[in-house]
């Protein structure tokens, strides 16, 4: 394979994530309403929102510095960078895949969070700082879960490169049903809920500022900044979903050769896998109510225990 092929394929992966991220959030939004017995907006609504926001003027707070202007770019940057490192469409590594493993990807997702949290304080609105403080609380409680999941993964696969990890769960097939694998999936699923601010941790549709966690950071953004923030958080969701379905859960359906047909099949397969995950997420989201703020520590504590059990299962399995 030539450098040009791997480079081009990685651009395709990037295009898949960037291009379809709003669609996935549209599908999830529509289903969420459907389950509640409402008709819900069109699945294309996020694209219309983005177009509207990009056409609007950017209203900034008086006290804001360049941080508040830069943060939306950082929020978009970090999931895009992670996309370059993980298997979105192909099961062979692509250009630059060595630039970071799963642990590094965890740190990279922190770039956007760091700047957005700073920017929330930068606007000078009390709600922003409140959201910043609370998001950091969820953030630091989630981090040990991630590292223990990575320990479990490296006890099984002896590697943290996503392209190598994905091979391990299905070779031999017995690995797929091993307790370690199942528990890792549960823990990572709980982590996705916390990291993307969904119920029961946070309610992305809430309208009451005092009860908000993530959303209150972006209250004072508008126009193109807000559009970038929305797009960025949709991309982050897709990236986490891709890690879940392609690396940890079901590494099937990916292109094994760089031919057009295989790639087209992979795009469809990955799309379906993510949509199925979204369906599960939406069901979970609509069946729980929001936890009280300090109960989130217990939720993530639970995730931590699951991850530790997965790790012990991984150590003890032959």
């Amino acid at each position, binding site marked *: 394979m030539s*450098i040009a092929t791997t480079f081009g394929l990685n651009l395709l992966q990037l295009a898949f994530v960037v291009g379809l991220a709003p669609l996935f959030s549209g599908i999830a939004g529509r289903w969420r309403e459907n389950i509640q017995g409402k008709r819900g907006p069109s699945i294309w609504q996020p694209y219309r929102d983005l177009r509207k926001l990009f056409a609007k003027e950017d209203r900034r707070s008086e006290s804001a510095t360049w941080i508040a202007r830069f943060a939306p770019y950082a929020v978009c940057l970090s999931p895009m960078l992670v996309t370059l490192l993980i298997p979105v469409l192909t099961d062979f590594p692509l250009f630059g895949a060595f630039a970071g493993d799963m642990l590094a990807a965890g740190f990279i997702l922190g770039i956007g969070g760091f700047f957005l949290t700073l920017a929330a*304080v930068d606007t000078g609105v009390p709600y922003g700082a409140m959201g910043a403080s609370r998001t950091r609380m969820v953030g630091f409680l989630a981090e040990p879960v991630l590292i223990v999941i990575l320990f479990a993964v490296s006890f099984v696969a002896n590697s943290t490169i996503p392209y190598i990890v994905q091979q391990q769960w299905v070779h031999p097939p017995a690995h797929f049903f091993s307790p370690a694998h199942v528990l890792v999936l549960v823990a990572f699923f709980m982590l996705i809920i916390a990291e993307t601010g969904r119920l029961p941790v946070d309610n992305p549709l809430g309208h009451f500022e005092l009860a908000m966690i993530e959303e209150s950071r972006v209250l004072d953004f508008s126009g193109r900044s807000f559009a970038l923030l929305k797009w960025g958080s949709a991309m982050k969701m897709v990236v986490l979903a891709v890690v879940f379905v392609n690396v940890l859960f079901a590494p099937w359906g990916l292109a094994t050769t760089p031919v057009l047909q295989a790639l087209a099949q992979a795009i469809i397969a990955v799309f379906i896998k993510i949509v199925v995950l979204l369906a599960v997420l939406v069901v979970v989201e609509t069946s729980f109510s929001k936890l009280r703020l300090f109960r989130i*520590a217990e939720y993530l504590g639970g995730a931590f225990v699951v991850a530790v059990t997965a790790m012990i299962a991984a150590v003890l399995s032959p």
Partner: protein
Amino acid sequence: MTWSLPVLGTAHFVPTPFGVFFSSLALIVAVPTALYSIAYLRRYAHEYSIGWFAFGYVLLLVAIVAVFCAADVVSFMIAWEVMTLASCALVAFEWRESRKVRAALLMLAMSELGALAALLAFLLAASPTHSLAFSTIAAHAAALSSTTRTWIVLLSFFGFGVKAGILPFNAWLPRAHPEAPANVSALLSGIILNLGVYGMLLVNLVLVPQDATLFGILAVTVGTLSAITGILYATIDDDLKRMLAFSSIENIGIVVAALGAGATFLSLHRLDLAALGFGAGLWHMGNHSFYKALLFLGAGAVDAAAATRRMNLLGGLAKAMPVTAACFLIGALAIAAIPPLNGFASEWLTLETLLRSAEVGPLAVKLGFVLAGALLALTAALAVTCFVKSYAMTFLGAPRSEAAQEVRRELSAAAGIGMALLAAACVLSGVFPAYMVQLVGSALPGVLHGRLAQALLPPFLSTHSNLPASFLRDFHSLGATIGAGLIPGRSLVLLHRGGTANPVVFAMSSTYLACFLLVLLVLIYVAVRLFAQRHAVREHVWAGGLHPLLPEMTYTATGFSNPVRVIFQAVFNPRTTENTREAVHENFRIAITRRREEVFVADRLATTPLAVATRATAGFLARMHHGRLEGYVLYALCALLIALLAIVR
């Protein structure tokens, strides 16, 4: 270099690669700090003698380099004592303020205790040889009994641990580091803590390298605990410089834990993994030197401009002090392990080293490393919280006091250059990890020398590489060999190779990450520029219908870190005093005064009990000072009689 000293014999100073690595770190930190001092010291000029300061500063640097080059116990201890005295003198530079003098004396007392323990460790190590030269001690280390070795490990670990600022004897650190002038704090956190690490490694890796198991267990445990307690107290602290001091405890904790992981792998005879651990530790130590010095200088600039270090009273300084704000941001990004800066690179390597427990047999090592890894991950995430809070509450938002509002300008250009140089060091060490790894790898002593590069840097860029052809071909198509023949060095990628099932165990290249980040940023920026509405307006902040938003209505640093206080209450175990009586007015309770105080865990569990016990013993012994005179005469007579009898017989 050899000096002959009266009475003590000759002092040998021999630069080794190991010592030179530490000394160069010291000098890289010291030069920008000196530049900064030109501007910073002006505020003291009318009250204190700058000449004495300069003398102490230079003496300290000379003593530090002498410690790193000392080749026998006597010259080491002399240089060590000069270093300790000079650093205490610099902490007490503002000697008219009793608080600063007390902090310096506490530091001196604890340092001397540590030095005594370290001296004992040296003497035990030298006991079979009757020579105090390091080379002779190392050559005869095999003759030591296992009990002696245990004592050497314990004494050297806790003795040098005092200087390194790890638990349990680090109560001096959060007192002394913030009280010193900022340029001295930068040296204390940036260089002096490294001396403790150097001492530990000198004894346990260079002089008595045989038994690494105990050192490994101790270092991983104590290092991890220091890291987590350090960052917890840093996160809730309101004082900008004390926060940085606590965070130094955290970082040295991470360093010591990484070294401990290395020692554990060494005791399991996995030299490649041991090199990873020691390399990660030393690299993180160097990175910590850069960003912590930078952050202390930034904090000093803030202190000089706003005359307060309390984050609750700061805010909004980024507009008046853009250079300080930018430099402090780079330091904060680095210490919060945000890619592609240096803190990320070395912390990533530390965690990867712990993940390598997958490759070794003992279950205890695996579970222990998972626990350490989880705690270090929590530490890393809390560090993000801590530095988001510090930067945001100091430089962003609305100013929360008049002092902060009236800040108009930077300290001076020289100070800006000093900070910018350190910021550049943070960026370079992060963006070019392969070169740093090579530097660190060549500094590792003994059996580990050169192994780090072997374990971490596949020679993608050299023309004659020993890599398997298929491996090289695969990575060629991924772009890892781009620039072969043009870019110096072995590789730009940190990559640990595995077996057939896992050809790559872990890999990272912050060089590439930085390039990708830049390219993507430019792409997004251009796209937004082309397609989005460019118009922007400035608006007042909505304040619930009130105008303007008062500073009291905004979030404070204390409020920001409150979730940490609530969740980790069991660790902080705060003393709460509530006063309701005064505030009762005509049967209505109108206000409650509640004071909450978190006492540092080392104070609570180590220093205070120790002080109480010492005082009680002294009180008990002091009783014999107040007896009857006849009694003392009788004692003297009896003693004389016994002595005479003993001699006559």
